[in-house]
């Protein structure tokens, strides 16, 4: 009797009364609705304010197309480079012990805490007309600042840590036993990587790549400093949105913005699917029968 009461009391003690629970849920949902859902909905409503025809017309503009193309090219260069770096850095940091490892990990994170505007500025100081190697570049007719290479460099900088950040803790948690077993059984280094390490980190990799890609396509501050805003030439999609918006072409600005918002929604969708898949894999692995003890 007293035992049941204690159990009931304990159970009541680990949750809140229904009115507290529903107040907290309403507050949280209200906040999410105001700060996240409304802005997202506003993008699409503003884009379609003058109907589907005006929306499609805005997207058919040649300047919008060059902006879309430049954004796709930038992401297509920046994401694979940072992917290779992320895997290399995670392998070195997670699989070995060496001096200065903690410091190196901090340096990998550094671009996250640098303001995007500062990230753009450093490349102007290096490659700009008054920069350290600007005059040499000018003499050889190489354009980096106010051109596509500068945009790619600035994007590389701001998206630098994304994939490494995902992979380092994941590979640290997995340890090196499986790789060592593969090596002992005669696999080469590449075989070990492709057949042992890669399947283990694939979800972390996908996760890092989609977040890196979202930032690469959406970066504004850093790219804004190095691009020079030459319409139809060095405008990425976010910069094109800014120009249209400042020219009071609201529908056109929100039309291009709606493409970026769609990209964000797709990114969130893939990210959630990856998380659910990862959880399912973990659960399946946990439910495997225990291995037989050696006889």
């Amino acid at each position, binding site marked *: 009797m007293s035992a049941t009461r204690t159990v009931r009391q304990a159970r009541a003690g680990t949750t809140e009364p229904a009115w507290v629970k529903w107040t907290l849920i309403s507050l949280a949902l209200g906040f999410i609705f105001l700060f996240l859902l409304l802005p997202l909905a506003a993008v699409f409503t503003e884009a379609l304010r003058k109907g589907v025809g005006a929306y499609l017309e805005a997207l058919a503009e040649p300047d919008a197309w060059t902006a879309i193309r430049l954004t796709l090219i930038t992401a297509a260069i920046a994401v694979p480079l940072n992917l290779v770096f992320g895997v290399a850095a995670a392998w070195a940091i997670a699989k070995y012990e060496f001096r200065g490892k903690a410091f190196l990990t901090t340096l990998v994170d550094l671009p996250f805490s640098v303001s995007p505007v500062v990230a753009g500025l450093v490349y102007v100081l290096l490659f700009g007309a008054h920069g350290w190697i600007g005059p040499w570049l000018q003499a050889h007719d190489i354009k980096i600042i106010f051109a596509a290479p500068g945009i790619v460099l600035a994007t590389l900088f701001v998206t630098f840590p994304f994939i490494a950040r995902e992979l380092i803790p994941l590979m640290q948690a997995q340890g090196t036993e499986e790789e060592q077993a593969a090596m002992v059984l005669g696999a080469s280094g590449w075989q070990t990587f492709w057949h042992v390490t890669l399947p283990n980190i694939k979800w972390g990799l996908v996760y890092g790549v989609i977040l890196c890609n979202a930032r690469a396509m959406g970066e504004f501050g850093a790219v804004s400093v190095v691009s020079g805003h030459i319409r139809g030439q060095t405008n990425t999609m976010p910069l094109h949105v800014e120009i249209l918006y400042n020219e009071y072409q609201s529908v056109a600005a929100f039309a291009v913005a709606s493409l970026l918002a769609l*990209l964000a929604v797709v990114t969130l969708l893939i990210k959630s699917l990856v998380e659910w898949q990862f959880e399912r894999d973990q659960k399946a692995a946990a439910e495997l029968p225990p291995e037989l003890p050696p006889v």
Partner: protein
Amino acid sequence: MAATPFAVAGGAARKRATRRVLPGFNLTLGFTLLYLGLIVLLPLSALVLKTLTLTWAQFWAAVASARVLAAYQLTFGASLIAALVNAVAGLLVAWVLVRYRFPGKKIIDALVDLPFALPTAVAGIALTALLADNGWVGQVLAPHGIQLAFNRNGVVIALIFIGLPFVVRTVQPVLEDTEKELEEAATCLGASRWQTFRYVIFPSIAPALLTGFAMAFARAIGEYGSVIFIAGNMPMVSEITPLIIIGKLEQYDYAGATAVAVVMLGFSFVLLLVINALQALQRRRSGGAP
């Protein structure tokens, strides 16, 4: 009997073997350092070198003029308020997502990351469209004399949007790992639900909450894209520090822009070290628990 020395020897051999058996250490570390040097360290050192060409008086004039000081004040003040709001709202959202079941929970959970995925410029124009006098929210508030766009309020709102996921995503996993047994024990010992939260749950999530707060604050200080559309950008009133750098660059004042950038970089570096220390503290806390 012989098992113990054998195990010790095996352990030592394994440690040595880690270095020998797995290949690619020189290749991956070499590439990591080279890439880090080229993309991050070399450009950042250009910033420091450029600053060294300034005299102290020039540097001081650039970083401590009245307009720049007003910008620091706004940037730090607004970032602090936004990070505090995020700490409270983020804890609430994380709590609700971990502890309760309600319809649409998975969608809400996915939506929390929207500020990470949505380009900042899009966030900026969307928030502006909402809060301007003819926007969905603005037209409700304008008759009451509340203006949220084109002033300092707008800056804070944009920074709240940008920083929200940091707190939720750092607190959420820690909250999932807290042990129900401790709460049951507290209740059995006669603690009220509030006391259990205050003295049992909160101390275990406090380091994570602080980390999330610091991350949201650090991100807010550097934020540019979402703020400039909604701030109105009036000098001395609603002009953020990154915009000062852009303004100086547009006037070809590279030295001045660099000086302000170095001040910001210094702050980011200090914050990065603080966040790292907080995360180490958090790992010790969670690792130390039995």
